[in-house]
Protein backbone atom coordinates (compact mmCIF):
# COMPACT_ATOMS: atom_id res chain seq x y z
CA UNK A 1 0.00 0.00 0.00
CA UNK A 2 1.18 3.46 -0.85
CA UNK A 3 1.17 5.29 2.49
CA UNK A 4 -0.37 8.73 2.52
CA UNK A 5 1.56 11.55 4.16
CA UNK A 6 2.40 15.19 3.63
CA UNK A 7 5.51 14.00 1.83
CA UNK A 8 3.54 11.73 -0.54
CA UNK A 9 1.18 14.62 -1.29
CA UNK A 10 4.13 16.83 -2.18
CA UNK A 11 5.85 14.17 -4.24
CA UNK A 12 2.69 13.44 -6.23
CA UNK A 13 1.95 17.12 -6.65
CA UNK A 14 5.36 17.51 -8.26
CA UNK A 15 4.43 14.64 -10.58
CA UNK A 16 1.19 16.45 -11.51
CA UNK A 17 -0.78 13.82 -9.59
CA UNK A 18 -0.34 11.31 -12.38
CA UNK A 19 1.42 8.66 -10.35
CA UNK A 20 -1.04 7.83 -7.59
CA UNK A 21 -1.48 4.05 -7.40
CA UNK A 22 -4.72 2.12 -7.31
CA UNK A 23 -6.25 2.37 -3.87
CA UNK A 24 -7.24 -1.29 -3.77
CA UNK A 25 -6.67 -4.22 -6.12
CA UNK A 26 -9.37 -5.74 -8.27
CA UNK A 27 -8.64 -9.46 -7.91
CA UNK A 28 -10.40 -12.37 -9.53
CA UNK A 29 -12.21 -14.46 -6.92
CA UNK A 30 -10.29 -17.54 -5.74
CA UNK A 31 -11.97 -20.93 -5.41
CA UNK A 32 -12.05 -20.71 -1.65
CA UNK A 33 -11.29 -18.48 1.31
CA UNK A 34 -10.90 -18.86 5.07
CA UNK A 35 -13.72 -16.37 5.45
CA UNK A 36 -16.17 -14.63 3.16
CA UNK A 37 -17.91 -11.36 3.93
CA UNK A 38 -21.05 -10.81 1.89
CA UNK A 39 -21.58 -7.10 1.46
CA UNK A 40 -18.90 -4.47 0.83
CA UNK A 41 -20.46 -1.61 2.75
CA UNK A 42 -18.76 0.05 5.70
CA UNK A 43 -19.68 -2.68 8.17
CA UNK A 44 -18.55 -5.49 5.87
CA UNK A 45 -15.26 -3.82 5.02
CA UNK A 46 -14.64 -3.00 8.69
CA UNK A 47 -15.31 -6.65 9.55
CA UNK A 48 -12.76 -7.77 6.97
CA UNK A 49 -10.25 -5.19 8.18
CA UNK A 50 -10.51 -6.18 11.84
CA UNK A 51 -10.49 -9.91 10.97
CA UNK A 52 -7.15 -9.30 9.27
CA UNK A 53 -5.76 -6.81 11.77
CA UNK A 54 -6.91 -8.24 15.11
CA UNK A 55 -7.29 -11.93 14.33
CA UNK A 56 -4.47 -12.60 11.88
CA UNK A 57 -6.70 -13.82 9.05
CA UNK A 58 -5.84 -12.58 5.60
CA UNK A 59 -7.34 -15.14 3.24
CA UNK A 60 -10.63 -13.26 3.17
CA UNK A 61 -12.94 -12.11 0.41
CA UNK A 62 -15.44 -9.28 0.56
CA UNK A 63 -18.15 -9.82 -2.05
CA UNK A 64 -19.98 -6.69 -3.16
CA UNK A 65 -22.80 -6.85 -5.68
CA UNK A 66 -22.34 -3.23 -6.79
CA UNK A 67 -19.34 -1.07 -6.12
CA UNK A 68 -17.61 0.01 -2.92
CA UNK A 69 -19.32 3.03 -1.41
CA UNK A 70 -22.39 2.69 -3.64
CA UNK A 71 -24.86 1.48 -1.02
CA UNK A 72 -26.13 2.85 2.27
CA UNK A 73 -22.57 3.70 3.35
CA UNK A 74 -22.55 6.41 0.71
CA UNK A 75 -26.16 7.46 1.35
CA UNK A 76 -26.58 8.53 4.94
CA UNK A 77 -26.45 11.60 7.11
CA UNK A 78 -23.05 10.62 8.55
CA UNK A 79 -23.89 11.35 12.18
CA UNK A 80 -21.69 9.73 14.82
CA UNK A 81 -22.70 9.62 18.49
CA UNK A 82 -22.85 7.11 21.33
CA UNK A 83 -25.47 8.59 23.67
CA UNK A 84 -27.73 5.56 23.83
CA UNK A 85 -29.85 4.92 26.88
CA UNK A 86 -29.40 1.24 27.61
CA UNK A 87 -26.02 -0.02 28.76
CA UNK A 88 -25.81 -2.79 26.16
CA UNK A 89 -26.32 -0.35 23.29
CA UNK A 90 -24.28 2.45 24.86
CA UNK A 91 -21.20 0.25 25.31
CA UNK A 92 -21.33 -1.03 21.73
CA UNK A 93 -21.70 2.45 20.24
CA UNK A 94 -19.10 3.86 22.63
CA UNK A 95 -16.61 1.22 21.47
CA UNK A 96 -17.32 2.48 18.00
CA UNK A 97 -16.84 6.09 19.09
CA UNK A 98 -13.44 5.25 20.55
CA UNK A 99 -12.42 3.60 17.31
CA UNK A 100 -13.65 6.64 15.35
CA UNK A 101 -11.39 8.84 17.43
CA UNK A 102 -8.27 7.12 16.12
CA UNK A 103 -9.61 5.85 12.81
CA UNK A 104 -7.89 8.22 10.37
CA UNK A 105 -4.49 7.39 11.87
CA UNK A 106 -5.27 3.69 12.08
CA UNK A 107 -6.37 3.45 8.45
CA UNK A 108 -3.87 6.03 7.18
CA UNK A 109 -6.86 7.57 5.44
CA UNK A 110 -8.56 10.79 6.39
CA UNK A 111 -12.16 9.91 7.19
CA UNK A 112 -12.73 13.56 8.12
CA UNK A 113 -14.16 12.67 11.52
CA UNK A 114 -15.28 15.97 12.96
CA UNK A 115 -16.35 16.04 16.59
CA UNK A 116 -18.57 19.07 16.26
CA UNK A 117 -21.10 17.95 18.86
CA UNK A 118 -24.57 16.46 18.54
CA UNK A 119 -27.62 18.12 20.05
CA UNK A 120 -30.80 16.10 20.65
CA UNK A 121 -33.62 18.57 21.19
CA UNK A 122 -36.44 18.27 23.69
CA UNK A 123 -39.81 19.86 22.95
CA UNK A 124 -41.90 18.92 25.95
CA UNK A 125 -41.57 18.35 29.66
CA UNK A 126 -41.50 14.61 29.04
CA UNK A 127 -38.81 15.01 26.37
CA UNK A 128 -36.68 16.90 28.90
CA UNK A 129 -37.20 14.24 31.57
CA UNK A 130 -36.15 11.58 29.08
CA UNK A 131 -33.13 13.65 28.09
CA UNK A 132 -32.03 14.06 31.71
CA UNK A 133 -32.47 10.37 32.31
CA UNK A 134 -30.45 9.50 29.21
CA UNK A 135 -27.71 12.00 30.02
CA UNK A 136 -27.37 10.53 33.51
CA UNK A 137 -27.34 6.99 32.13
CA UNK A 138 -24.64 8.00 29.63
CA UNK A 139 -22.48 9.49 32.36
CA UNK A 140 -22.78 6.37 34.47
CA UNK A 141 -21.43 4.47 31.46
CA UNK A 142 -18.51 6.88 31.10
CA UNK A 143 -19.95 8.58 28.02
CA UNK A 144 -19.80 12.36 27.81
CA UNK A 145 -23.21 13.98 27.91
CA UNK A 146 -24.75 17.11 29.23
CA UNK A 147 -28.09 18.86 29.39
CA UNK A 148 -28.23 22.33 27.91
CA UNK A 149 -30.94 24.95 28.23
CA UNK A 150 -32.37 27.30 25.63
CA UNK A 151 -30.03 30.18 26.52
CA UNK A 152 -26.99 28.09 25.69
CA UNK A 153 -28.71 26.65 22.62
CA UNK A 154 -29.41 30.15 21.37
CA UNK A 155 -25.72 31.03 21.66
CA UNK A 156 -24.41 27.79 20.18
CA UNK A 157 -26.91 27.55 17.30
CA UNK A 158 -27.93 31.12 16.45
CA UNK A 159 -30.42 30.19 13.71
CA UNK A 160 -32.33 27.62 15.77
CA UNK A 161 -35.83 28.82 16.56
CA UNK A 162 -35.96 28.81 20.36
CA UNK A 163 -38.94 31.13 20.52
CA UNK A 164 -41.49 30.05 23.15
CA UNK A 165 -44.16 30.82 20.55
CA UNK A 166 -43.01 28.06 18.21
CA UNK A 167 -45.52 25.34 17.37
CA UNK A 168 -43.25 22.81 19.13
CA UNK A 169 -41.13 25.02 21.37
CA UNK A 170 -37.57 23.92 22.09
CA UNK A 171 -37.11 23.51 25.84
CA UNK A 172 -33.54 22.26 25.88
CA UNK A 173 -31.32 19.51 24.55
CA UNK A 174 -28.80 16.87 25.35
CA UNK A 175 -25.34 17.50 24.00
CA UNK A 176 -22.63 15.00 23.27
CA UNK A 177 -19.55 17.04 22.44
CA UNK A 178 -17.58 14.04 21.20
CA UNK A 179 -20.30 13.33 18.65
CA UNK A 180 -20.17 14.71 15.14
CA UNK A 181 -19.93 13.63 11.55
CA UNK A 182 -17.50 11.76 9.31
CA UNK A 183 -17.14 11.62 5.56
CA UNK A 184 -19.10 8.50 4.63
CA UNK A 185 -17.39 7.74 1.31
CA UNK A 186 -13.99 8.08 2.93
CA UNK A 187 -14.99 5.54 5.57
CA UNK A 188 -15.79 2.96 2.89
CA UNK A 189 -12.70 3.77 0.86
CA UNK A 190 -10.42 3.92 3.91
CA UNK A 191 -11.53 0.54 5.23
CA UNK A 192 -11.37 -0.98 1.73
CA UNK A 193 -7.84 0.29 1.20
CA UNK A 194 -6.62 -0.78 4.63
CA UNK A 195 -8.23 -4.23 4.35
CA UNK A 196 -6.79 -4.69 0.88
CA UNK A 197 -3.34 -3.81 2.19
CA UNK A 198 -3.67 -6.64 4.72
CA UNK A 199 -4.41 -9.11 1.91
CA UNK A 200 -8.22 -9.04 1.80
CA UNK A 201 -9.66 -9.60 -1.70
CA UNK A 202 -12.34 -7.01 -2.42
CA UNK A 203 -14.46 -8.37 -5.25
CA UNK A 204 -16.90 -5.89 -6.71
CA UNK A 205 -19.72 -6.63 -9.18
CA UNK A 206 -20.15 -10.01 -7.52
CA UNK A 207 -23.66 -10.72 -6.27
CA UNK A 208 -24.29 -13.71 -4.03
CA UNK A 209 -27.12 -15.81 -5.45
CA UNK A 210 -27.05 -18.74 -3.04
CA UNK A 211 -25.59 -19.95 0.22
CA UNK A 212 -24.44 -23.57 0.25
CA UNK A 213 -25.27 -25.44 3.43
CA UNK A 214 -24.31 -29.06 3.95
CA UNK A 215 -25.15 -31.00 7.10
CA UNK A 216 -26.08 -27.85 8.98
CA UNK A 217 -22.79 -26.17 8.11
CA UNK A 218 -22.08 -23.34 5.71
CA UNK A 219 -19.70 -24.52 2.98
CA UNK A 220 -19.71 -21.72 0.44
CA UNK A 221 -21.64 -19.30 -1.70
CA UNK A 222 -22.90 -19.20 -5.27
CA UNK A 223 -22.18 -15.90 -6.96
CA UNK A 224 -22.59 -14.24 -10.32
CA UNK A 225 -18.83 -14.86 -10.71
CA UNK A 226 -18.97 -18.55 -9.84
CA UNK A 227 -19.03 -20.62 -6.66
CA UNK A 228 -16.68 -19.72 -3.82
CA UNK A 229 -16.01 -22.12 -0.95
CA UNK A 230 -15.65 -21.11 2.67
CA UNK A 231 -16.75 -22.54 6.00
CA UNK A 232 -17.02 -19.11 7.59
CA UNK A 233 -19.48 -16.70 6.01
CA UNK A 234 -20.48 -13.35 7.43
CA UNK A 235 -23.50 -11.65 5.89
CA UNK A 236 -23.52 -7.87 6.24
CA UNK A 237 -26.01 -6.65 3.68
CA UNK A 238 -28.32 -4.26 5.57
CA UNK A 239 -31.71 -4.05 3.85
CA UNK A 240 -31.30 -7.30 1.95
CA UNK A 241 -30.41 -9.42 5.00
CA UNK A 242 -33.78 -11.16 4.78
CA UNK A 243 -33.18 -12.10 1.14
CA UNK A 244 -29.79 -13.61 2.03
CA UNK A 245 -31.25 -15.41 5.05
CA UNK A 246 -33.82 -17.03 2.80
CA UNK A 247 -30.98 -18.51 0.75
CA UNK A 248 -29.94 -20.49 3.82
CA UNK A 249 -33.56 -21.28 4.79
CA UNK A 250 -33.36 -18.94 7.76
CA UNK A 251 -35.85 -16.35 8.90
CA UNK A 252 -34.87 -13.07 10.51
CA UNK A 253 -36.95 -10.85 12.81
CA UNK A 254 -36.41 -7.82 10.61
CA UNK A 255 -38.33 -5.87 8.03
CA UNK A 256 -36.85 -3.68 5.31
CA UNK A 257 -37.94 -0.09 4.85
CA UNK A 258 -36.84 2.79 2.63
CA UNK A 259 -35.11 5.59 4.54
CA UNK A 260 -34.60 8.96 2.91
CA UNK A 261 -32.14 11.80 3.17
CA UNK A 262 -31.48 14.95 1.20
CA UNK A 263 -28.82 17.56 0.66
CA UNK A 264 -29.45 21.17 -0.21
CA UNK A 265 -27.63 23.44 -2.58
CA UNK A 266 -24.31 24.51 -1.00
CA UNK A 267 -24.58 27.63 1.13
CA UNK A 268 -22.14 29.56 3.29
CA UNK A 269 -21.26 28.17 6.73
CA UNK A 270 -24.38 28.50 8.86
CA UNK A 271 -24.48 25.45 11.13
CA UNK A 272 -21.34 24.10 12.79
CA UNK A 273 -22.87 21.26 14.75
CA UNK A 274 -25.45 18.48 14.41
CA UNK A 275 -29.04 19.07 15.47
CA UNK A 276 -31.52 16.22 15.88
CA UNK A 277 -35.09 16.26 17.01
CA UNK A 278 -37.00 13.08 17.67
CA UNK A 279 -40.24 14.94 18.38
CA UNK A 280 -40.59 16.81 15.10
CA UNK A 281 -38.44 14.14 13.47
CA UNK A 282 -35.71 15.81 11.54
CA UNK A 283 -31.97 15.99 11.78
CA UNK A 284 -29.56 18.31 10.11
CA UNK A 285 -25.92 19.21 9.77
CA UNK A 286 -23.88 21.11 7.23
CA UNK A 287 -21.24 19.36 5.16
CA UNK A 288 -17.81 20.81 4.50
CA UNK A 289 -19.01 21.57 0.97
CA UNK A 290 -21.75 23.75 2.42
CA UNK A 291 -24.72 21.50 1.74
CA UNK A 292 -27.29 21.05 4.45
CA UNK A 293 -27.54 17.32 5.08
CA UNK A 294 -31.04 16.40 6.21
CA UNK A 295 -32.40 13.08 7.36
CA UNK A 296 -36.02 11.94 7.22
CA UNK A 297 -37.81 8.99 8.72
CA UNK A 298 -38.56 5.60 7.24
CA UNK A 299 -41.65 4.76 5.26
CA UNK A 300 -44.06 2.96 7.58
CA UNK A 301 -44.58 0.16 5.07
CA UNK A 302 -41.79 -2.16 4.09
CA UNK A 303 -40.13 -1.90 0.73
CA UNK A 304 -37.04 -2.66 -1.31
CA UNK A 305 -37.38 0.04 -3.97
CA UNK A 306 -34.61 2.55 -3.29
CA UNK A 307 -36.89 5.54 -3.15
CA UNK A 308 -39.17 6.70 -0.40
CA UNK A 309 -42.60 8.21 -0.30
CA UNK A 310 -43.36 11.87 -0.79
CA UNK A 311 -45.26 12.48 2.49
CA UNK A 312 -42.13 11.49 4.41
CA UNK A 313 -40.09 14.11 2.52
CA UNK A 314 -42.71 16.74 3.27
CA UNK A 315 -42.75 15.79 6.95
CA UNK A 316 -38.97 16.09 7.27
CA UNK A 317 -39.01 19.46 5.52
CA UNK A 318 -41.70 20.71 7.86
CA UNK A 319 -39.54 19.68 10.82
CA UNK A 320 -36.46 21.46 9.47
CA UNK A 321 -38.35 24.66 8.67
CA UNK A 322 -39.95 24.51 12.12
CA UNK A 323 -36.50 24.33 13.74
CA UNK A 324 -34.71 26.66 11.31
CA UNK A 325 -37.14 29.12 9.67
CA UNK A 326 -34.10 30.66 7.96
CA UNK A 327 -33.78 27.55 5.77
CA UNK A 328 -37.28 27.85 4.32
CA UNK A 329 -36.01 29.13 0.97
CA UNK A 330 -33.03 26.82 0.65
CA UNK A 331 -33.54 24.47 -2.27
CA UNK A 332 -32.87 20.78 -2.08
CA UNK A 333 -30.36 19.50 -4.58
CA UNK A 334 -30.46 15.71 -4.27
CA UNK A 335 -32.43 13.13 -2.38
CA UNK A 336 -31.98 9.43 -2.08
CA UNK A 337 -33.49 6.41 -0.39
CA UNK A 338 -31.65 3.45 1.06
CA UNK A 339 -33.10 0.20 2.31
CA UNK A 340 -32.66 -0.27 6.02
CA UNK A 341 -33.31 -3.42 8.03
CA UNK A 342 -35.29 -2.67 11.14
CA UNK A 343 -35.45 -5.09 14.06
CA UNK A 344 -38.42 -5.05 16.47
CA UNK A 345 -36.31 -3.40 19.20
CA UNK A 346 -34.44 -1.17 16.72
CA UNK A 347 -31.19 -2.73 17.86
CA UNK A 348 -28.75 -4.63 15.67
CA UNK A 349 -28.29 -8.36 15.34
CA UNK A 350 -24.62 -9.47 15.39
CA UNK A 351 -25.01 -13.12 15.80
CA UNK A 352 -24.28 -16.71 15.05
CA UNK A 353 -27.15 -18.52 13.39
CA UNK A 354 -28.56 -22.06 13.54
CA UNK A 355 -26.30 -22.77 10.53
CA UNK A 356 -22.77 -23.44 11.72
CA UNK A 357 -20.24 -21.04 10.21
CA UNK A 358 -22.90 -18.61 9.04
CA UNK A 359 -23.05 -15.26 10.81
CA UNK A 360 -25.37 -12.32 10.37
CA UNK A 361 -24.67 -8.66 11.07
CA UNK A 362 -27.89 -6.78 10.38
CA UNK A 363 -30.78 -4.93 11.94
CA UNK A 364 -28.91 -1.62 12.24
CA UNK A 365 -32.01 0.04 10.95
CA UNK A 366 -31.74 3.78 10.58
CA UNK A 367 -28.58 4.28 12.62
CA UNK A 368 -25.82 2.01 11.39
CA UNK A 369 -23.25 4.47 10.07
CA UNK A 370 -22.06 5.61 13.49
CA UNK A 371 -21.42 2.01 14.44
CA UNK A 372 -19.30 1.10 11.42
CA UNK A 373 -15.95 0.55 13.16
CA UNK A 374 -17.39 -0.97 16.34
CA UNK A 375 -19.70 -3.25 14.40
CA UNK A 376 -16.83 -4.56 12.30
CA UNK A 377 -14.63 -4.92 15.36
CA UNK A 378 -17.16 -6.99 17.30
CA UNK A 379 -18.39 -8.99 14.31
CA UNK A 380 -14.80 -9.89 13.37
CA UNK A 381 -14.35 -11.25 16.89
CA UNK A 382 -17.56 -13.26 16.54
CA UNK A 383 -16.49 -14.75 13.23
CA UNK A 384 -12.90 -15.45 14.28
CA UNK A 385 -13.78 -17.16 17.58
CA UNK A 386 -17.21 -18.53 16.63
CA UNK A 387 -18.38 -16.76 19.75
CA UNK A 388 -19.78 -13.31 20.41
CA UNK A 389 -17.60 -10.71 22.12
CA UNK A 390 -19.13 -9.47 25.35
CA UNK A 391 -19.97 -6.22 23.57
CA UNK A 392 -22.23 -7.92 21.04
CA UNK A 393 -23.38 -10.91 23.12
CA UNK A 394 -26.64 -9.08 24.03
CA UNK A 395 -27.34 -8.61 20.30
CA UNK A 396 -27.87 -12.26 19.41
CA UNK A 397 -30.75 -13.75 17.47
CA UNK A 398 -31.75 -15.65 20.62
CA UNK A 399 -32.86 -12.47 22.33
CA UNK A 400 -36.11 -12.59 20.41
CA UNK A 401 -37.04 -15.94 21.92
CA UNK A 402 -35.60 -15.32 25.40
CA UNK A 403 -37.29 -11.92 25.52
CA UNK A 404 -34.09 -10.09 26.50
CA UNK A 405 -34.65 -7.31 23.99
CA UNK A 406 -32.57 -4.15 24.14
CA UNK A 407 -35.53 -1.84 24.03
CA UNK A 408 -33.76 1.23 22.70
CA UNK A 409 -36.65 2.05 20.39
CA UNK A 410 -39.27 2.35 23.08
CA UNK A 411 -37.30 3.95 25.85
CA UNK A 412 -34.73 6.27 24.39
CA UNK A 413 -37.11 8.55 22.51
CA UNK A 414 -34.26 9.59 20.27
CA UNK A 415 -34.09 9.44 16.53
CA UNK A 416 -31.55 6.86 15.45
Amino acid sequence: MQRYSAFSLLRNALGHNRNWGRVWRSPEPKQGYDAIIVGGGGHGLATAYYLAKNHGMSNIAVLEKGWIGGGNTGRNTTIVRSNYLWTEAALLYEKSMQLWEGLSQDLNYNVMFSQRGVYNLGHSLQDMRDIERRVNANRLNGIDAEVVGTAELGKAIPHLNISPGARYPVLGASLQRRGGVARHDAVAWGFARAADALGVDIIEQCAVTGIDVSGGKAVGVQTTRGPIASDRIGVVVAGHAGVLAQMADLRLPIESHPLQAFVSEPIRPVLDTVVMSGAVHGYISQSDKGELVIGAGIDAYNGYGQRGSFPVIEHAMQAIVELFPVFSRVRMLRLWGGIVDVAPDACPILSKTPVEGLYFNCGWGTGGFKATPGSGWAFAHTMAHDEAHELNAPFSLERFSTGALVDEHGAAAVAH
Partner: protein
Amino acid sequence: MLLIECPWCGPRAETEFSHGGEAGITRPANPDALSDAEWADYLFYRSNPRGAHRELWNHARGCRRWFVVERDTVTNRIAGSFRLDEALPVPASAAGKQAEQGD
Protein backbone atom coordinates in the same frame (compact mmCIF):
# COMPACT_ATOMS: atom_id res chain seq x y z
CA MET B 1 -47.50 8.68 -3.16
CA LEU B 2 -49.37 5.38 -3.16
CA LEU B 3 -52.93 5.34 -4.41
CA ILE B 4 -54.59 2.74 -2.22
CA GLU B 5 -58.00 1.36 -2.95
CA CYS B 6 -60.13 1.07 0.16
CA PRO B 7 -62.68 -1.69 -0.51
CA TRP B 8 -65.39 0.56 0.91
CA CYS B 9 -64.33 4.11 0.00
CA GLY B 10 -62.47 3.62 -3.28
CA PRO B 11 -59.03 4.92 -4.27
CA ARG B 12 -57.52 7.36 -1.77
CA ALA B 13 -54.08 8.86 -1.07
CA GLU B 14 -51.61 6.97 1.09
CA THR B 15 -51.73 9.68 3.77
CA GLU B 16 -55.28 8.60 4.71
CA PHE B 17 -54.08 5.14 5.68
CA SER B 18 -51.91 3.54 8.30
CA HIS B 19 -49.91 0.41 7.70
CA GLY B 20 -50.58 -2.65 9.83
CA GLY B 21 -47.78 -4.99 8.81
CA GLU B 22 -47.88 -8.37 7.17
CA ALA B 23 -51.33 -9.87 6.69
CA GLY B 24 -52.30 -13.37 7.68
CA ILE B 25 -50.49 -13.48 11.03
CA THR B 26 -52.92 -15.24 13.33
CA ARG B 27 -52.58 -15.10 17.08
CA PRO B 28 -52.01 -18.68 18.28
CA ALA B 29 -55.10 -20.12 19.92
CA ASN B 30 -53.16 -21.44 22.89
CA PRO B 31 -49.94 -19.45 23.54
CA ASP B 32 -49.10 -21.53 26.63
CA ALA B 33 -48.64 -24.57 24.44
CA LEU B 34 -45.97 -22.90 22.29
CA SER B 35 -42.21 -23.10 22.66
CA ASP B 36 -40.31 -19.83 23.12
CA ALA B 37 -39.15 -20.07 19.51
CA GLU B 38 -42.69 -20.51 18.21
CA TRP B 39 -43.93 -17.58 20.27
CA ALA B 40 -41.02 -15.44 19.03
CA ASP B 41 -41.92 -16.43 15.48
CA TYR B 42 -45.46 -15.17 15.98
CA LEU B 43 -44.33 -11.96 17.69
CA PHE B 44 -41.30 -10.89 15.72
CA TYR B 45 -40.58 -12.93 12.60
CA ARG B 46 -42.05 -11.72 9.32
CA SER B 47 -41.57 -12.89 5.76
CA ASN B 48 -40.25 -9.47 4.57
CA PRO B 49 -40.28 -10.52 0.91
CA ARG B 50 -38.65 -8.72 -1.97
CA GLY B 51 -41.64 -8.79 -4.31
CA ALA B 52 -45.32 -9.54 -3.71
CA HIS B 53 -46.38 -8.78 -0.14
CA ARG B 54 -49.80 -9.04 1.47
CA GLU B 55 -50.22 -6.48 4.17
CA LEU B 56 -52.87 -4.96 6.38
CA TRP B 57 -53.90 -1.35 5.92
CA ASN B 58 -56.31 0.69 7.98
CA HIS B 59 -58.26 3.55 6.46
CA ALA B 60 -57.42 5.57 9.56
CA ARG B 61 -58.48 8.98 8.20
CA GLY B 62 -61.58 7.54 6.51
CA CYS B 63 -63.89 4.66 7.29
CA ARG B 64 -61.38 3.25 9.82
CA ARG B 65 -61.76 -0.27 8.50
CA TRP B 66 -58.96 -2.80 8.04
CA PHE B 67 -58.33 -4.58 4.77
CA VAL B 68 -55.61 -6.44 2.88
CA VAL B 69 -53.51 -4.98 0.08
CA GLU B 70 -51.19 -6.93 -2.15
CA ARG B 71 -48.27 -4.72 -3.09
CA ASP B 72 -44.94 -5.34 -4.74
CA THR B 73 -42.27 -4.18 -2.29
CA VAL B 74 -39.82 -3.26 -5.07
CA THR B 75 -42.04 -1.40 -7.53
CA ASN B 76 -44.81 -0.43 -5.06
CA ARG B 77 -47.32 -1.60 -7.68
CA ILE B 78 -50.56 -2.57 -5.99
CA ALA B 79 -52.15 -5.76 -7.32
CA GLY B 80 -55.40 -5.41 -5.43
CA SER B 81 -57.30 -4.72 -2.22
CA PHE B 82 -59.34 -7.33 -0.41
CA ARG B 83 -61.80 -7.24 2.42
CA LEU B 84 -60.91 -9.34 5.42
CA ASP B 85 -64.14 -11.34 5.11
CA GLU B 86 -63.54 -12.40 1.54
CA ALA B 87 -61.35 -15.24 0.35
CA LEU B 88 -58.01 -13.97 -0.96
CA PRO B 89 -57.02 -15.08 -4.44
CA VAL B 90 -53.88 -17.22 -4.41
CA PRO B 91 -52.04 -16.86 -7.74
CA ALA B 92 -50.39 -13.42 -7.75
CA SER B 93 -48.45 -13.85 -4.53
CA ALA B 94 -47.36 -17.42 -5.24
CA ALA B 95 -46.32 -16.53 -8.80
CA GLY B 96 -44.39 -13.53 -7.51
CA LYS B 97 -42.44 -15.65 -5.06
CA GLN B 98 -41.51 -18.15 -7.74
CA ALA B 99 -40.32 -15.41 -10.04
CA GLU B 100 -38.21 -13.96 -7.26
CA GLN B 101 -36.51 -17.26 -6.57
CA GLY B 102 -35.69 -17.53 -10.26
CA ASP B 103 -33.63 -14.35 -10.48
